[in-house]
């Protein structure tokens, strides 16, 4: 049974990476490297939890509670996207610096909000756990983690992939990330695309944070671990070569590697010392580096990052 549990747990922790990476891909496809993703995911989680706390005791139907929490999460994470795009798109500030600042800010403010929530009531927001984990909430094995948001994440990834590669709007969006000047010259509104992509991307990434607290972890300290998971999402973008459909498989691989140490003894019968845990958690990064090396050697143009990634675009430049 432990193998099944391992696979299911890997799959569901992978959903966090999947949501984070899907959001980041949309942003990177318009040429903006948002290193604020860990902060965005944290704030998304906080926004969702605050909404849940406010709805506590009002006897709302479960699906409505989940829906409102998701919207609150999406909006609060999206607001982080607004800050990021205002600074980088309108004020042309450095993307890396802005992103890192956003991570620090987002993680910090989340810690503040979440610690307040715990102090007011006894973290009542966790009452909604059963709604998030529906339809498998009452199971005892790892299938219980595969709640509604799992399906939302998978559908989102597939839709985003379809949108990016099969629609005209997606074509326009990718063109901006490759060469903003080209897109501008054919009359695409570069600024609004960049804003929308960043905000929607942030919103989707934020859902990953809420999923972790309300589904996978289901504990009051969970918010402390979101930052680390956020960085893995950024790594997953590279691992999946900027393609959301590959992300689905990639997130599973990341999940397998990330929790390998917890299942090593029960599956393989090896007793790993505690000190090994951080090393094993490094594996996703090692794999990302291997993928980077392989794609750099093969130099296939389609597998490279968007050509305009990280480059700020000014129009009236002479």
């Amino acid at each position: 049974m432990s193998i099944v549990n391992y696979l299911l747990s890997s799959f569901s922790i992978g959903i966090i990476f999947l949501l984070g990476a899907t959001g980041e891909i949309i942003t990177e496809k318009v040429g903006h490297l948002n290193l604020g993703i860990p902060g965005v995911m944290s704030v998304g989680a906080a926004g969702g939890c605050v909404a849940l706390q406010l709805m506590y005791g009002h006897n709302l139907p479960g699906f409505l509670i989940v829906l409102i929490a998701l919207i609150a999460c999406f909006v609060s994470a999206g607001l982080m996207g607004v800050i990021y795009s205002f600074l980088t798109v309108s004020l042309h500030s450095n993307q890396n610096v802005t992103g890192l600042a956003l991570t620090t800010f987002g993680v910090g403010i989340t810690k503040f909000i979440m610690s307040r929530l715990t102090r007011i009531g006894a973290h009542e927001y966790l009452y909604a756990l059963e709604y998030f984990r529906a339809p498998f909430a009452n199971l005892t094995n790892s299938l219980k983690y595969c709640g509604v948001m799992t399906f939302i994440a998978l559908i989102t990834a597939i839709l985003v992939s379809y949108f990016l590669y099969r629609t005209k709007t997606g074509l326009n969006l990718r063109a901006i990330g490759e060469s903003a000047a080209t897109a501008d010259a054919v009359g695409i509104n570069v600024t609004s695309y960049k804003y929308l992509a960043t905000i929607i991307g942030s919103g989707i990434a934020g859902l990953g944070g809420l999923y972790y607290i309300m589904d996978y972890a289901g504990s009051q300290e969970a918010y402390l671990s979101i930052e680390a998971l956020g960085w893995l999402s950024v790594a997953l973008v590279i691992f999946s070569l900027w393609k959301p459909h590959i992300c689905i498989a990639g997130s599973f691989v990341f999940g397998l590697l990330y929790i390998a140490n917890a299942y090593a003894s029960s599956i393989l019968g090896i007793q790993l010392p505690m000190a090994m845990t951080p090393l094993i958690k490094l594996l996703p990064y090692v794999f990302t580096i291997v993928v980077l090396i392989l794609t750099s050697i093969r130099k296939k143009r389609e597998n490279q990052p968007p050509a305009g990634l990280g480059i700020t675009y000014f129009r009236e430049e002479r």
Partner: protein
Amino acid sequence: MKKELALELKHITKTFGNVVANHDVSLDVYKGEILAILGENGCGKTTLMNMISGIYFPDEGEIFVDGKPVIIRSPKDAFRYKIGMVHQHFKLVDIFTAGENIVLGDSEKKRFNLNDVNNRVAEITERYGFTVDPQKKIYEMSVSEKQTVEIIKVLYRNADILILDEPTAVLTPQETRNLFEVLRNMRADGKSIIIITHKLHEVLEISDRVAVLRKGEHIATVDTKDATESSLTEMMVGQKISLNIERTEPKNSVVRLKVEGLSATDDEGLKVLDNISFEARSGEILGIAGIAGSGQRELLEAIAGLYPLNEGDIIYNNPKTGDTVDLRNKTPLQIRNLGVRLSFVPEDRLGMGLVGNMNITDNMMLRSYRRGKSMFVDRARPKALASEIIESLQVNTPGVSTEVRKLSGGNVQKVLVGREIAAAPTVLMVAYPVRGLDINSSYTIYNLLNKQKESGVSVIFVGEDLDVLLELCDRIVVINSGRITGICDGRTVTKEEVGLLMTKSHEEEREVKSNE
């Protein structure tokens, strides 16, 4: 046949900061004609066209399309008025297919289907006699194929007015002929075509009328059938203006640098330098004239050890030892270690010459930090040098610790030239040293160059203003598409002669070669 007006420009003015790019330009374009816009580089051709295609917005003046006044604020507006521009530097997404690039940004409210797009592309290509594979990725295409995609992109949006910015600069003669065939088909179809160029023979071959711009102003529009190469050159370069730059006779002139048969290619595999040979002598200023992008930058960078060469030698005669060394394919550091005192003032001052975020002293150290054995840097000497340059060249700055980017263009240039001269070069190469400078700063630079010449330095001066070249230089090398088309005496040559050498074709020669 009665001609209908397609596009009118009235009194267009555009300035960038203090630089006037276009001043009071008025132009008409008719339906079913090819209008050539002719002018030297920096005369405002591209800026003018960018205003029609929505990249820039004019400061003053009006634009009329089909007799109605229009406001074009963005490329999207331009497309709405059926105006499309093919830029000199292609604006294509490399990893997309031709079809995807063509449909990009198209606002048609139809279900997106690449097959439909490809069919329509096939229709257009057939109509005007192109060939292109819509499924091919841009990065697999040749330059001429990319250009074809750009033109189809514009036609796909039903453009009636097409602007082509130096379309033949990157094409072979055969490809140029094909392009002209396509342009004639489009003209026959009633489209208006504006072609920017500085190749006179092409103007005469393809256009119906020629508009000549000079220094941002519209000089005249003439019917091509009434024009000749020399009449056009005269309009293009204008009357000679006396600048009163002093010029002394070279003294004790010996060959310092001998360049033999230099050839180089760019990233795309196109020849940028083709069999370049000349001598630079001590105590003289050697001018290099040419349309921008004719290989000047590559030539200087090749001598400085920054651009890889396919063929040729750069022989340096060391005045101290009398030895000769070949500088070909050596790095700047190796060149310096050979005892060659070469100074280079590049065209991109804050990109290649100085570091904008560092102060004047630190920028001095960029050239001298290797000196000395201590692990700590010696700031005293660079600081003294910085103060000296500020004083002797009258650099307008609050002090030596001011960041270079905060200085004005002229002062930046003084700092750079000052540093390069302080290295006591035997060969001094300067590229467009007075670009963007006011009159006084320009004269300061001319005087500095003259002083270097008098002290026996071999100065190589790449310039764009023919009046300056004719008054400052002892000899002028004219290059055209990476080849030398003439080496003239700066004292006797006329402006028109240099202008013709800069623009005349050597297509016939080239074709003979390719037939061999």
